[in-house]
Every structure is written in structure tokens, then in C-alpha cells.
């Protein structure tokens, strides 16, 4: 099968905006989404900055029309997936086989945490409806129902590469003729479990994160959701507006080095980037922008940087970590950053890597510091690397 897979719609919500337009404007203003915690109920309030979506539970319920007990993970997913599907505006979508491939890592844990606080204090207390949708697949099912997608529904959970793998999987489903349209990406909301877990691993920065900086101290958590609508050749011809671009390359490679850390030489990341280039039939020098995984942890940035050096040396394309804006949105990050990668091609823009000051000692390159527009961008690589060494790279290409 050699048919082309097009990107026809985009939807995103994160700490820097509730839709695509708000994101573009935050990027141009170089305004980060991290701040003191206001909505999220945690003992770290006032101590650790996070990038919260600036809509409360009640506001999300009112906008979405979903039931009161709906997990924030589901609500964020619905917001972005709906925007993507509306954006694609596929005429007569009912006549196509449409799928929803959505990733997340926390599931309905935000609600489960509320349940257990009450339940542990008194075993007769706690509302069971708050744990009913605990598992990751529930998020996807609820949103698929609400979007009336029935062709194929699947959930992927591979840590921080989850939603890049959803897009990867969706592209293959279309390429192999199993679907005509797929809404693919992922979602994650802030939970006590993830913030406390990352804090236990001692990789959370108490200040705003500084990806790829010599003096980086860790990540900031974020939340959000990001989806792209992938369509086949056949569907692309029916669209009323031209598709944004194609997805030309993808690869997943596994480091298998440590439960959470990447290998120091970034073997998994190197193989993922190299494999995606091969799939796309491109050379490293064809890439015009890399949206780095760039979490801001000493381990990730050093491993990813080493892998980039190994593959791209001596000529480096512009690159940046947009986690300096959105924080690390875990299972949503691959989807959110796929949207940013597509927008980079569409608008000829390159996002800055905020707060970058000092080049890493071991690297001969540094990320882009300020917002650039009017760029010629044909091929963008987007990296998403997860715990356990689960590494995925995607490549988007102008049509």
C-alpha cells in the first residue's frame, strides 16, 4: 500500500489556549501556560508550577454538555477532538468508515482520587460513579459516542509517546484501507498520582522548566488534549478546503534500558528518528523543523540531544520544545505537538524554546529562542519519547 494519508483537521486545548487560534496567538506573544496552581486540588499548590487548562470543571461541563461526573481527561479530549472534526468539515462523513484512536495515561483517575479520599475515611462513603470510568478506555468510548464515531474505536497507553502512537496507528489503518477517516491524538488531565509520581522521581522543576538548557532542572506538568483528523486519498478529494499536509513518516523504537529513564546514548530516540526518515524517504537535511520531546529533565534532553547530534551532525535544522509553553502533558503531548507541527507547515512558523539561556555542554547546537514567522517549512519531525524507552517520531510534510 502506498496511498497518501492527509491531515485535514486540527484541534487542541492546553495551558496556553482552548483552541487552535488561541494557541497561535500565545506562541506569537511567547506566553507560557505555567502558573501557580489554581484549579487542581493538590498539596503542591503554591509550590510547583503547572500548566492548567484555564477552564474549570463546571465550565467544561457547560460547554461540552457531558454529564456532571465526567472525568476532566474526557472533557479535554472532547473539546479538542470536536474542534478537529469540525475543522476538517468532511462532507457527508456518514458515508465513510471513521475511527477514533485516542491515547491517555491517567484515565479517569482525577475522579478516582476524589472517590478514595472519601472512601478511605469511611468505607460507606464515596460515590461509585466517580470510579466507574477509571480505566483509560472509558475516556475514548465516551468521546467516540458523543462524536457519533462508530467505525473503529481504540485506546493507546504507552506513557509519554501514547498519542504519537495513536496517530501512527491511525495512519496505518488508513494506509491499509481499513478506515477512510480517523480522529487521532490523545488527552491527559492533571492528577495527584502523576504530579506526586514525577515529584518522587525528583524530575519536577520548582521553577518554569528550561528544556535543552545546560542548567535545566526538570519538567513542569501540564494538561490538555490534541487531535488531528487523518483522511485517505479518496476523502481528501471531497474536502471543501485543501488538507494541511500529509503524514509521511513514523517509527516506534524501544530503548528497554530502565523503567523510566532513556539510555544515555539515546538509542531508542535515534532509531525512532532514523526510522521515520526512512519511512518518509527523506534525509536528515530535508527536515526544516524538529519539535523536540524536550521535557526539561536532565536525562531526556541529554539522551535526545545526543541522538539528534548522532543523526543530524553537522547541519542542524531549527528545533524547539513547545513544552516550555504547555508543560509536559504526558499522554496528550504527542497529539498536541502533532497539531503544532502541522501548524508550523501551514503558517510557516517556528516556535521558540522559552527561557533557553545556556547551551548544553555536550551539544554543538541550541534551540530556537524567539518566535519566527515567514519560514519555508516543508518537513517537520515531531518527537515523543516515553517511560520504558518507548520512542516515537512522526514526520509531517507539505503537500
Amino acid at each position: 500500500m502506498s496511498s497518501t494519508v492527509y491531515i485535514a483537521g486540527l484541534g487542541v486545548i492546553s495551558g496556553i489556549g482552548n483552541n487552535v487560534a488561541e494557541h497561535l496567538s500565545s506562541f506569537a506573544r511567547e506566553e507560557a501556560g505555567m502558573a501557580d496552581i489554581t484549579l487542581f486540588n493538590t498539596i503542591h499548590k503554591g509550590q510547583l508550577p503547572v500548566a492548567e487548562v484555564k477552564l474549570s470543571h463546571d465550565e467544561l461541563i457547560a460547554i461540552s454538555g457531558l454529564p456532571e461526573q465526567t472525568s476532566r481527561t474526557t472533557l479535554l479530549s472532547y473539546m479538542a477532538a470536536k474542534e478537529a472534526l469540525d475543522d476538517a468539515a468532511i462532507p457527508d462523513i456518514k458515508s465513510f468508515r471513521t475511527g477514533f484512536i485516542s491515547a491517555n495515561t491517567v484515565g479517569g483517575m482525577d475522579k478516582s482520587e476524589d472517590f478514595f479520599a472519601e472512601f478511605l475515611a469511611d468505607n460507606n462513603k464515596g460515590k461509585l460513579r466517580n470510579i466507574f470510568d477509571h480505566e483509560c478506555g472509558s475516556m475514548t468510548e465516551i468521546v467516540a459516542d458523543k462524536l457519533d464515531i462508530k467505525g473503529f474505536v481504540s485506546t493507546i497507553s504507552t506513557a509519554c509517546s501514547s498519542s504519537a502512537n495513536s496517530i501512527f496507528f491511525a495512519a496505518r489503518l488508513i494506509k491499509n484501507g481499513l478506515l477512510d477517516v480517523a480522529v487521532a491524538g490523545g488527552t491527559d488531565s492533571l492528577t495527584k498520582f502523576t504530579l506526586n509520581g514525577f515529584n518522587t522521581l525528583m524530575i519536577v522543576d520548582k521553577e518554569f522548566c528550561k528544556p535543552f538548557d545546560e542548567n535545566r532542572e526538570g519538567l513542569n506538568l501540564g494538561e490538555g488534549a490534541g487531535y488531528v483528523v487523518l483522511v485517505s486519498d479518496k476523502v481528501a478529494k471531497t474536502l471543501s478546503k485543501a488538507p494541511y499536509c500529509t503524514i509521511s513518516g513514523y517509527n516506534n523504537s524501544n530503548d528497554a534500558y530502565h523503567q523510566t529513564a532513556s539510555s544515555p546514548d539515546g538509542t531508542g530516540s535515534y532509531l525512532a528518528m532514523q526510522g521515520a526518515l526512512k519511512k518518509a524517504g527523506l534525509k536528515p537535511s530535508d527536515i526544516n523543523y524538529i519539535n523536540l520531546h524536550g521535557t526539561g529533565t536532565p536525562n531526556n534532553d541529554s539522551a535526545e540531544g545526543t541522538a539528534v547530534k548522532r543523526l543530524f551532525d553537522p547541519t542542524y535544522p531549527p528545533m524547539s520544545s513547545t513544552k516550555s509553553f504547555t508543560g509536559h502533558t504526558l499522554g496528550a503531548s504527542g497529539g498536541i505537538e502533532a497539531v503544532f507541527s502541522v501548524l508550523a507547515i501551514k503558517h510557516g512558523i517556528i516556535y521558540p524554546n522559552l527561557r533557553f539561556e545556556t547551551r548544553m555542554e555536550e551539544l554543538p547546537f541550541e534551540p530556537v529562542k524567539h518566535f519566527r514567522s515567514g519560514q519555508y517549512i516543508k518537513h517537520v519531525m515531531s518527537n515523543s519519547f516515553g517511560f520504558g524507552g518507548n520512542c516515537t517520531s512522526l514526520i509531517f510534510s507539505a503537500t
Partner: protein
Amino acid sequence: MNCITSSCIISQGTVLKDGHQLFEKKGIDASAFLLSVYQHFGLNYPKFYKMDNLSKLGWLASEILLKDTFEKENYQSEQVGLILANQNSSLDNDIKYFDTLKYIASPSLFVYTLPNIVMGEICIRNNFKGEHAFYIQDQFDQGFIETQVNYLLDNDILDACICGWVDILQEKYKAVLFLVEKQRGEDAVRFSAEMMNEIFNRA
């Protein structure tokens, strides 16, 4: 025909391979015993010292299970997998981790607060990349393991599978691993729930 080509039991101070006792040391606690097994068999894998006791137990059992028996060069990495189960998940390490919360939550204990990490340790050591799954059951369910392993082997998803039980909670520990392969060596016994049950209960 799927065959059990090797078995290993580590339980309460004794180590058995294929029914023969290879090592015994009673009257010491679980951590000290696991270290003595590591030393007795002359193993050299510094990462052992970082592992939680569940991983140490499962990893040691896999080392002894495979040693001098498993012909790795006959297999592709993707053709070897694992199906393991236990009763107490990672509770042994979870309790130790929970105790550190009073002071400073320990990152090195935190990364072992999942039962399937033991499989990761075995896979990393041997470069196994096939299907693997970890189940939590009240007791060793031979029929369930038999179904899972036969499915993987009979559908050519795997060519060899390590399966069995790895359970530890404080001072109570038992690992019983089976190497199941398609080809039949002369000593091989037929892989079945009954045979697993018989071997399991020897310990």
C-alpha cells in the same frame, strides 16, 4: 507438541532446577537469602543490587532456569516471551516505598512499584522482545497459564515462553518458572496444567 524443557523453583531457602536441589540456606531473611543465591551461582550483573526483592527473585529463577539449558542462538529476540503471575503484585516493595514517604519518597523504590517490572528485568537481561503479560491471581492457576502459553506458541506468536509464578511478601516467597519450547529434547516433558501443578507442589 509444547514441552517443558526446564523448570526452576526458588522457595523458602531452597533452589531446585529440574527437580534437583542445587542450593539450600535456611535461617536467613529473604533479602539475605536472595543475595546468597546470587553469590552461590557466581552471577555477575551489578544491576541485581538495584532491584526490589520481587525482581531479584524472578530474575534469579530465570537465570538458573535458562543456564546450560536454553539455546538462545536458536531463537530471534521477538520469538521469546513471558507469562507470569502472582498473588501479591508488587506489595512487598510498595510497603517499603510507603515507609519512605514519611521522610523523602525514594525514587529507586518507586520505580519498582509495579509487578511487571520483574519481566522487564528478565527481558533486558536476555534481550527478549516477544509478547509478555503479568497476571495477579489468588493462587497459581495452571489451567489459565496453560491456555495463555499454548495460544502464544500454537499461533506462532512465540517459539519459546517462560511462564510461571513469582511471588514475595516480606519473608514468604516462592518462584516457580517453566521454560516452554516447541521442539522436543530427549528429557522434555509435555507442557500441561497437570505437569505444572506437579512441579509447583514439589516445593
